[in-house]
């Protein structure tokens, strides 16, 4: 294991976030607080409880997931895309470092940043709504798995994208709709029957459901199904990255 290489990549990526503190940490927290104010306090006060949970508290897990997914992808995709764009990737490719070590450095840093954002948002939510976490271990497990798997997904996008437009394409056109339609603000049974079936094809539903269960023991699908879907997604991302490095896809033309 080239531990020095992992250390410098991880440190470099974390420093990048530190240099842009407002953009990296303050901005997602402020956006999520606005969701709490609008949906939790203003509109939420007029909505009945959902499965015995106040609406303001009900949306907390979904909002955390929304921030985690968005920022995991953004951090990891930009982290690897920018060296490709500027040409400095030559140094990574010519160094005695395996793809696993590259992943630990880049994806580890992106996942760490997302994890910090998740914890800050969770703490901030406590100021707006009364929160209890029924299963802290499961909550942390879902949090960490989501940070890692979506940072991996972002890393794949960063390797695939050829320009800044493509870099934004997947997060804007795929991820944001999936999260909004993934039960962040409602339970599946609030939807018409046909849409309930359609929404089961959305992997984000399983993420939010499992994460919400860890807070309130309320879920759309079994927590084990949620865990399997997240783990499966993580596995697919790992295999994809492995293939990209093995073939040199978009890296070693």
């Amino acid at each position, binding site marked *: 294991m*080239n*531990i*020095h*290489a992992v*250390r*410098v*990549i991880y440190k*470099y990526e974390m420093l990048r976030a530190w*240099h842009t503190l407002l953009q990296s940490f303050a901005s997602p927290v402020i956006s999520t607080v606005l969701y709490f104010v609008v949906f939790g306090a203003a509109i939420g006060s007029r909505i009945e409880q959902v499965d015995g949970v106040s609406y303001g508290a009900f949306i907390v897990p979904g909002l955390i997931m929304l921030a985690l997914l968005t920022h995991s992808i953004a951090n990891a995709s930009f982290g690897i895309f920018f*060296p490709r764009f*500027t*040409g*400095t990737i*030559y*140094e*990574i*490719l*010519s*160094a*005695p*470092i*395996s793809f696993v070590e590259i992943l630990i450095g880049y994806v580890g840093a992106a996942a760490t940043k997302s994890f910090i954002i998740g914890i800050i948002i969770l703490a901030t939510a406590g100021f707006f709504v009364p929160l209890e976490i029924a299963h802290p271990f499961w909550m942390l497990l879902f949090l960490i798995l989501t940070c890692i798997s979506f940072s991996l997904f972002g890393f794949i996008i960063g390797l695939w994208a050829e320009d800044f437009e493509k870099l934004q394409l997947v997060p804007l056109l795929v991820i944001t709709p999936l999260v909004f339609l993934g039960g962040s603000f409602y339970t599946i049974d609030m939807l018409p029957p046909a849409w309930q079936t359609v929404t089961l094809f959305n992997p984000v539903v399983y993420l939010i459901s499992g994460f919400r269960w860890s807070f309130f023991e309320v879920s759309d699908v079994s927590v084990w199904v949620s865990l399997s879907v997240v783990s499966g997604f993580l596995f697919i991302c790992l295999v994809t990255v492995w293939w990209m490095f093995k073939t*040199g896809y978009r890296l*070693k*033309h």
Partner: protein
Amino acid sequence: MGIFSVSFVFMKKPIVSISNLSKTYASGFVALKGVNLDIAEGEILALLGPNGAGKTTLISIICGIVNASSGQVLVNGQDNVKNFRSARALIGLVPQELTLGAFDTVWNTLNFSRGLFGKKPDPAYLEQLLKDLSLWDKKDSLLLTLSGGMKRRVLIAKALSHEPTILFLDEPTAGVDVELRKEMWALINRLRKSGVTIILTTHYIEEAEGIADRVGIINNGELLVVEDKLALMHKLGKRQLKIDIEKTISKIPESLSAWELTLFEDGQSLLYTYDPNRQQTGVAKLLRTIDSEGLLIKDVNTSQSSLEDIFIDMVNK
């Protein structure tokens, strides 16, 4: 160097050994066609070739940046794909483009490079390196604030930050001023003295002529020749004899036709091109014949064709 350099190169074991290396890009462009090359430990090898000849592709494959289509590269006996860790750890690369991050400091980017190659931090070594490259006073400067010449030196410092034994310089003096170019040449000589093997690509023939031990000429993905620089010039170089005469003539006399002379526009100089390695160069007889024609020789001077002439000859064949 001369003959000494030939024996020096052959005595040393190859530190890089390339066999049947080929590369065809996805577009169908064939960049390398079965290149074979051994690079001796401690030598300076200059790779010459026009744009698109395959120089950068060759370097990129050795360094692990580009996958080869076929063939093998051994670095100090280690396959650069199967044993990439031990192979790449020995190599430093200075790319052709000024590819540097914008918002890092010189000091941070050097530490980053050193760490990437698995070396633990060594501030004393990096300090000396920056001092050697006249960059010490810029160690806290952001990379985007540096001039082109300084960025080039930072790239060299990054390549040397992990103390490599093989250094690839891809057009190191492209676009740099004369003073910096001379500094680079001096640096390359210092590195060679410290035992570093240096492979450089260049467009500047005088660069190869000035600092290389051996010269390789690449064109259309093929390595046309790799030879000791002086031996190459000796083998392929032509010698020219310019004879200035007192009389002005409009036509070369019939008696001199055997030498295939060229008459200068002013009608007062003749040029004879010959192979200096031939036993009978014909120079003495030529001079006697000119004299007997009564053209009155005023001056003679000879010149050896340069690497540039050899290079142009070879790529145009």
